[in-house]
């Protein structure tokens, strides 16, 4: 589609661009208003609502936009809703969190919208350059938001670490992309002459296999290039070996942003990874299932990364006492589980990732929300700050219990649905290695119970450190209920999630 007609399907992104600017302007306009917190929050909700409306009226379809830079398809719409949901929760959480001063609230919201724009682009990018640019947009805004407290040493350290790791990872990714360009002489993943079409074409595959005088050198170059691109994605989703920034950033960043960071950009990273592999490097074969078109072992590579990621995340989480760090390692472990779905390299695998992400957004944001509520009261985020929460704030404690059991993957909570479907997708592939991967996955699930249960133990089984009454803002109570109820309902009744995921990923992407 040409650029002008593409704009019709680009409304959500356009609104987000305007929203970013509008938030900064509004911030200046209400500078002296005593009710600035309320005005800015309502403003942010307004722009978010407008984006949602734009997303809702965008007609369904499956067409390339802007000459193949982006793809408009149900997959993108699915992630759009997921991102908007996470953003809505963040906007509702921020004002009462006591972590973002009212003076800088407009700035925070403006950056959040810029971040959303980057994530939207990540979910629809089908061009190497577009992928790189959108990933960088998200990264740059994330650096700023991580170091939002300029005078806080931990925030500074976190932001710096984030920048350095991010710089290295995106450099590696860009290098990988340049190799891909060298091999295929195009940056398009899809469309005529795109990487996917070239790989599907037998002659170019033969060329690839026999370039350099019959040596499989080009194939090796292809593996290296894809692994390098995976580095950039792996950094966004915090998978081993690009996870080191994660705990420090989660700890140093303002907690409402940590909550968003743990779900939004991670989901966006998976959107890129899924599109990258399934639009170009995996071909559906008749009768279901996919093969890596160059007969290269992508499932093995991703499976190994997945196994290491979840094992390391879980084992390290066991020894954490700071809850934000613990949840950081737990989110690394969850990246590992999600990668299992990618390693399965099947339609079911992708759908299970999408379903997992729905539950993950609900339960992880919910867990961070309780962390915020507790640190408002105690000023700390250690596990011992949660002692006696069961009597001090029963509702928050019960909600956190639900979220943690859901994160463990115990029925009847939404986390179980996602986890079950991921394991099912892997087992369905059959064979020793896939079964081994699934076994590693379930053993990790059992291990994760150990550290999640420590928090539950502190809340219900141990006495409070002090007798001070704890107040949870009404809006937090409302959001907690609004998160806990779907976690339970979707855990028992999966049908809607399955429908959304099937709709989003019908069976591969358009070439």
């Amino acid at each position, binding site marked *: 589609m040409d650029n002008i007609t593409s704009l019709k399907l680009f409304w959500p992104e356009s609104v987000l661009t305007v929203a970013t600017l509008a938030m900064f302007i509004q911030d200046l306009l209400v500078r002296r208003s005593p009710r600035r917190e309320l005005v800015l929050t309502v403003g942010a909700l307004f722009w978010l609502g407008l984006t949602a409306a734009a997303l809702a009226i965008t007609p369904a379809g499956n067409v390339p936009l802007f000459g193949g830079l982006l793809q408009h398809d149900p997959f993108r719409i699915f992630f759009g809703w997921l991102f908007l949901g996470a953003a809505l929760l963040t906007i509702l959480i921020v004002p009462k969190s006591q972590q973002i001063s009212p003076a800088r609230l407009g700035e925070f919201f403006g950056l959040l919208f810029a971040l959303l724009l980057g994530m939207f682009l990540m979910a629809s990018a089908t061009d190497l350059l577009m992928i790189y640019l959108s990933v960088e947009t998200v990264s740059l805004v994330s650096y700023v938001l991580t170091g939002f407290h300029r005078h806080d040493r931990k925030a500074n350290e976190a932001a710096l670490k984030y920048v350095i790791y991010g710089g290295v990872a995106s450099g590696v990714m860009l290098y990988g992309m340049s190799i891909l360009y060298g091999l295929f002489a195009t940056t398009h993943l899809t469309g005529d002459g795109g990487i996917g079409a070239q790989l599907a074409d037998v002659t170019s595959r033969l060329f690839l296999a026999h370039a350099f005088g019959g040596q499989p050198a080009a194939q090796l170059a292809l593996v290296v290039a894809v692994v390098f691109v995976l580095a950039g994605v792996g950094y966004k989703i915090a998978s081993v070996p690009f996870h080191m920034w994660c705990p420090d950033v989660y700890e140093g960043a303002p907690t409402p942003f940590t909550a968003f960071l743990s779900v939004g950009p991670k989901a966006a990273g998976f959107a890129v990874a899924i599109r990258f592999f399934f639009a170009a490097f995996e071909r559906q074969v008749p009768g279901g299932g996919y093969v890596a078109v160059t007969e290269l072992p992508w499932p093995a590579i991703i499976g190994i990364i997945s196994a290491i990621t979840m094992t390391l995340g879980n084992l390290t989480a066991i020894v954490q006492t700071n809850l934000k760090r613990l949840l950081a390692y737990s989110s690394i472990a969850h990246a590992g589980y999600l990668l299992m779905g990618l390693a399965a390299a099947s339609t079911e695998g992708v759908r299970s990732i999408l379903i997992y992400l729905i539950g993950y957004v609900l339960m992880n944001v919910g867990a961070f929300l309780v962390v915020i509520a507790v640190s408002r009261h105690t000023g700390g985020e250690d596990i011992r700050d949660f002692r006696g929460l069961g009597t001090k704030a029963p509702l928050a404690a019960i909600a956190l219990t639900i979220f943690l059991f859901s994160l463990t993957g115990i*029925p009847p909570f939404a986390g179980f649905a996602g986890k079950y479907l991921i394991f099912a997708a892997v087992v369905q592939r059959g*064979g020793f290695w896939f079964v081994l991967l699934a076994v590693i996955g379930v*053993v990790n699930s059992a291990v994760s119970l150990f550290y999640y249960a420590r928090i539950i133990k502190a809340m219900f089984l141990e006495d409070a450190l002090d007798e001070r009454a704890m107040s949870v803002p009404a809006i937090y109570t409302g959001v907690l209920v609004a998160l806990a109820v779907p976690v339970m309902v979707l855990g028992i009744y999966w049908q809607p999630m*399955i429908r959304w995921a099937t709709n989003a990923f019908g069976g591969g992407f358009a070439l």
Partner: protein
Amino acid sequence: MDHPTTSTLLTWMTFLPLAGAALILPVLALRAGGALSKAAGDQICRLIALVASGAVLVLGWYLWRAFDPQNPALQFVQHGRWITAYNIEYFVGVDGISITLVMLTALISFIATIASMPWWPGNAHLDGHHFTQHGVPGYMAMLLILQTGMTGVFVSMDLFLFYVFWEVMLLPMYFLIGIWGGARKEYAAIKFFLYTLAGSVLMLLAIIGLYFYGPQEVVDGRLTHTFNMLKMAQWGRAGGYLAAPLIGSFHFINLAWIAFFIGFAVKIPMFPFHTWLPDAHVEAPTPISVILAGVLLKMGIYGILRINFAILPQATKWAAPAMAVFGTINIVYAAFVCLAQKDLKRMIAYSSVSHMGFCLLGMSAFTQQGIDGAVLNLWTHGLISPMLFLIVGVIYDRAHHRNIEGFGGLAQQVPEYAGLLGLAFFASLGLPGLCGFVSEFTVFLGSLVTWQTLTIISALSVIITAAYYLWAIQRMMLGKLNPTYATLPDVNWRERLTLYPLGALIIVFGFYPQAIFTLIEGSLRNLILPLQ
């Protein structure tokens, strides 16, 4: 669907307690709003629990009367669709394998609920730290959710539904031990949870395997797999799972069998997965120990019968010697461990391990008597071990310790208690005329044909069992009265209400075990047919 809905009774039995738990929420709201005092709210919650579990017991009685023992097939079926995309169904029913356990769950849950009440006179010694005194709404809600989970496990005929109930049950158990338990409650609770979860996650993979390699059917014009356990059993019996591809160099059925077996062995608990049990029992409050021993341990054996035996008969044959050996180890090893215990509750906990070994030994023989004995043993042990734990609870509530050596001559001071204790101990050691004897004897009768040596070893260990029980009676009840307990009150009415019914049932089924055999025989005959 080939099992049309015939009754909603099982759904009522399963979800009535859950509805009761939901009723506790408005009580909490009223209490928080100030409309109810704390004490009144507690009483209402207790009443809700009592009424809900009592109602289930009545329904259980009706189930027993209406159950047709001549029909070995599934009865009281209810069938509904749940997650259509994967053909997961809400499918419940009972047959001879599960009928006794559904009844047992209803009975033991009610007894445990009574044992959780502080209402009867003679309870003045209960202080604020006693489990009946603090966090009452939470306790009652957990107890009711637990009952839903337990009943659900026994009535589910859809493997997925089974797994969900199996896991759901863990959560309330964790809190019941962890919040209302004894000194090392946190350790015991997490150990129980981790052991069981570690076992059950492997089971989850095996369930997925059974699904994908299992039978297919057309639903809504779409070819799909099924979690229906009956269809899986048909498929497995016909050798369908033998065709599943090798995993590495292992047969799928053997790996799946092992995965299920480990999951269930943790629950039984079978040596070497039994170490969570003494801790959980010792730390759990009395009613929870009652439920643990009376119902939860039965789930392991039930699962093996329902899944390993019914769906994977070929692998069951392959693994029979291992089951028999592990059963014997359970019987003998745990009996010797009992002999060494100083804590009365720990001793009884280990005796449970020993008695569950009889089930393993009996069913691995693949004879009618063996498997009948094993399932009867679930019933008899389900009556005897709750009584034993209640007996321990009585003395612990009064003396605040359970050290066997720390008593002495109690029979003079508390004759009624001594009599009940004697009855329970003798029932457990297998005195003829009491129901424990019948099941043990039937197990030996059945297993002697197949496993001579192992059966003889196991039978000899009954001497050890007699030794530790008699020795305990001697140390606690006989001899000179320990002056510390010169004013020890005898059992009160709350305790009588729980002890006498169990004692009566122990005697009744000691003389008339046929009532149970009639119920279970038909289905069990079909179950072992492909194994012989």
